[in-house]
């Protein structure tokens, strides 16, 4: 089985895409979970502000999710463009 250069590049791109999205998902997943945990704590302490806290939590999670979206973009680029 002869392996050509282009074939290796393609294989590496697939593995790279898998690793990019897989490892890239760890950080945002844990981080957003922390945000949610703290939001629960805050609502437990001050239930009157539930609406405001929910919105703040969503904004914070959206920001910390952006690194996950970067990984997604890179993974899709590796799959379809490279």
């Amino acid at each position: 089985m002869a392996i050509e250069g282009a074939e290796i590049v393609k294989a590496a791109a697939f593995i790279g895409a898998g690793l990019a999205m897989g490892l890239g998902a760890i950080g945002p997943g844990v981080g957003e979970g922390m945000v949610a945990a703290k939001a629960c704590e805050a609502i437990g302490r001050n239930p009157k502000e539930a609406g405001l806290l929910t919105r703040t939590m969503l904004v914070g999670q959206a920001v910390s999710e952006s690194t996950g979206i970067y990984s997604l973009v890179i993974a899709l680029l590796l799959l379809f463009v490279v």
Partner: protein
Amino acid sequence: MGELGKLHQLIIPFFGHTITLNLEVIVMTWIVFTMLIILGLFAGRKKKILPGPIQAFGELIVSMLYGLTEDALGKERAKTYGPLVCALFMFLLLSNWLGIIPHLEEPTKDLNTTLGLGIMGFVIAHYAGIKSKGFKAYIKEYFQPIFFMMPLNLIGELAKIVSISFRLFGNIMGGSIIILVVSSLTYSVVLPPFLYAFFGLFVGTIQAFVFTMLTIVYISVQVR
């Protein structure tokens, strides 16, 4: 195990292209529709001040979902979006529960159903956003914080459709695969009823609620 991945499809030729219909899913969706309409008719017929059991059940669900919508969107908008939220939740709930009846399957097991519902929620949320903020302010949000973040913001928005619809699909499909596999490993002894109770009733309820909540949340993020 042969049932895995078997699909009943109706393929119609259409001006050189083909339209593929997943028959089973369509039939199951219509079953859910029928059940919901019958429930609605019984709950709404002969309204009394002292409600009967079905009317009380209907009022319970409607008031709970209206309360949720009001919390997130405010009183004014809840009037517009409340019925949508109620219909969405009831449809998803019945769809996710349908699998516990023998020979019936969850329509939400098909990606097309969940993707359709996700796109519907996305379009409604963005329509609501444009209506409340005006077109200019809506477009401006994509260029926050700096203008070249536009493609990433756009992908972030589109990723919401993917995440909301694949979550429901993955959970329901995963649950039904687990039930299928464990039933065939244990020759359908003892375990399957508990698995149906867990994945069909419990996870199905939670996922229907999560999907509905997220649709409300997406609308509320766009509106404010």
